[in-house]
């Protein structure tokens, strides 16, 4: 019986030889994670279980990244709850401020998430780890609490949709962000609801790991349960340097069943911008011509990785941020921050007139570090442009990759890099 990579991973973790879409299973977990917003709620629910300890202190990650360094007293209390729980439970994967990064940048970088894993996280972008060939999905705090207590979770086996990106003839500056915005633009914000999005083809093989993380990160913006890319040599090179435990590589069978198959040639995909207020409003960057922008954000679990900063720096080098624009650059982790410093990227940003922040989610979810006033417009490399996501309900967010973000910061309006170079 042929299976997809998602089906194979779930079957093995449920102790079954085969599974079919729609089937309900209970699977063993390799990791559970929560952040400083969802974690404290999970901890409260965990305590209702009446078990003393988490099921495995090596397999619980607690990442205080959303409102840290704490923006106010209430958020400091949330962090304190996490910190005390982490200490009491001797949680191995806990990072204090100064060592913490945006969860979905940090965990793969530190080798905590690996190919073949089943991972649940009380954060919807947990699907990011699919880029390693893992099954990873977001859940709420109560599901996470049950996972922390038992090491198991229930799942409905999702149908899979295959996205084949053909060719390697990318248009200049196009990255994983453009491919995923393009896909969401085609299928809509519920186009993959309850389903697995499997990305494959020469175009995907040509992408860096950083770009693959970006793609799987945004699977949830199409409603998907998970995004996934089967491991190849690039994946193995990435994880072998980091893994501290064994892992397993799975692949889809050639005759596995898909409910839908999309095929696009990467040569046909221009740089994308998603207009307010849904990620599905993806359009070619040229459609944004003349739209003035007040703030540009480069960072987040979608595009806060080293490659993103390198691309932005290549465009910003020797240039100035437009006088009407605030540019905020947020490296995803301390390691990325340090590497960007070594490579001189931070200096380029600061010389251009940008804010460079310590790793945090900050403005991505409208927490702090760049909140929008009424009527303001941002272009951001983050993943959601919902009403009010970054501040006032009457502000607007345009989503794009780092190249368009850097060009826009220079031009003061939505721009293609060629217009500023």
């Amino acid at each position, binding site marked *: 019986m042929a299976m997809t990579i998602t089906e194979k991973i779930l079957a093995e973790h449920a102790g079954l030889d085969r599974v079919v879409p729609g089937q309900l299973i209970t699977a063993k977990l390799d990791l559970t994670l929560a952040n400083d917003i969802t974690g404290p*709620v999970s901890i409260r629910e965990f305590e209702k279980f009446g078990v003393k300890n988490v099921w495995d202190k090596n397999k619980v990650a607690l990442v205080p990244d*959303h409102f840290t360094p704490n*923006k106010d007293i209430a958020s400091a209390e949330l962090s304190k709850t996490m910190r005390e729980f982490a200490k009491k439970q001797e949680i191995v994967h806990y990072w204090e401020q100064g060592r913490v990064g945006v969860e979905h940048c940090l965990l793969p970088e530190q080798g905590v998430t690996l190919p073949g894993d089943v991972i649940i996280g009380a954060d919807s972008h947990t699907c990011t780890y699919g880029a390693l060939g893992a099954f990873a999905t977001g859940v709420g705090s109560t*599901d996470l609490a049950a996972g922390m207590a038992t090491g198991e979770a229930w799942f409905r086996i999702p149908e899979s949709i295959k996205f084949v990106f053909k060719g390697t003839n990318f248009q200049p500056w196009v990255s994983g962000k453009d491919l995923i915005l393009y896909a969401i633009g085609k299928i809509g*914000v519920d186009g993959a*609801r309850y389903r697995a999005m499997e990305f494959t083809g020469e175009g995907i093989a040509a992408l860096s790991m950083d770009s693959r993380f970006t793609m799987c990160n945004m699977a949830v913006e199409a409603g998907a349960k998970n995004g996934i890319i089967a491991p190849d040599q690039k994946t193995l090179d990435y994880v072998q340097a980091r893994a501290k435990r064994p892992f397993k590589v799975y692949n889809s069978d050639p005759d596995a069943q898909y409910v839908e198959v999309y095929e696009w040639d990467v040569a046909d995909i221009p740089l994308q911008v998603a207009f307010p207020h849904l990620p599905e409003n993806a359009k070619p960057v040229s459609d944004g011509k003349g739209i003035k922008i007040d703030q540009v954000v480069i960072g987040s679990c979608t595009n806060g990785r080293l490659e993103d900063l390198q691309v932005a720096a290549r465009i910003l080098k020797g240039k100035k941020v437009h006088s009407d624009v605030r540019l905020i650059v947020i490296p995803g982790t301390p390691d990325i921050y340090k590497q960007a410093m070594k490579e001189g990227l931070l200096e380029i940003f600061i010389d251009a007139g940008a804010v460079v922040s310590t790793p945090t989610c900050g403005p991505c979810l*409208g927490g702090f570090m760049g909140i929008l006033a009424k009527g303001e417009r941002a272009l951001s490399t983050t993943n959601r442009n919902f009403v009010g996501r970054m501040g006032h309900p009457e502000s607007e967010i345009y989503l794009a990759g780092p190249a368009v973000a850097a060009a826009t910061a220079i031009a003061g309006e939505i721009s293609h890099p060629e217009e500023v170079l």
Partner: protein
Amino acid sequence: MARAWKFGDDIDTDAIIPARYMNQFSPEHLAAHCMEDADVNFAKEVKTGDFIIGGKNFGCGSSREHAPVAIKAAGVKAVIAESYARIFYRNSLNIGLPILESPEAVQGIEAGDEVSVDLESGKIKNLTKNTAFEARPFPPFMQDLIKAGGLIPYVKGRRENA
């Protein structure tokens, strides 16, 4: 009188409870800001027993359980929508917010209509228009989960019986 509050498609969790209020998680605090970015008057005017009617993909976006908690704490008896985003669906069952799926009811109910719902049978009535609808039944596993009173009692029960 239980009235219907109607919202459109793709109501996201940032609209249900904006992250700027998530530095606390007490249900009362969340309820005070429920649906704020979709309708600023909702939290002030909603009455205990009212219903939220949503379009397709209700609750899309973040995994925040704060969203169904806010709706429940605001006094909403049930949400009726064409379809739900998956994490919101799971979260609602886990925390005991009744959610019903019925595209027909969504079509047939307007803002302000008086509505009654029998949660056991899934029967939805529009008393203003004198029409009736049936929600899609939950799969048996979900029914067990709901009957147990949410995920934690359900899992606890299973462990004790194992």
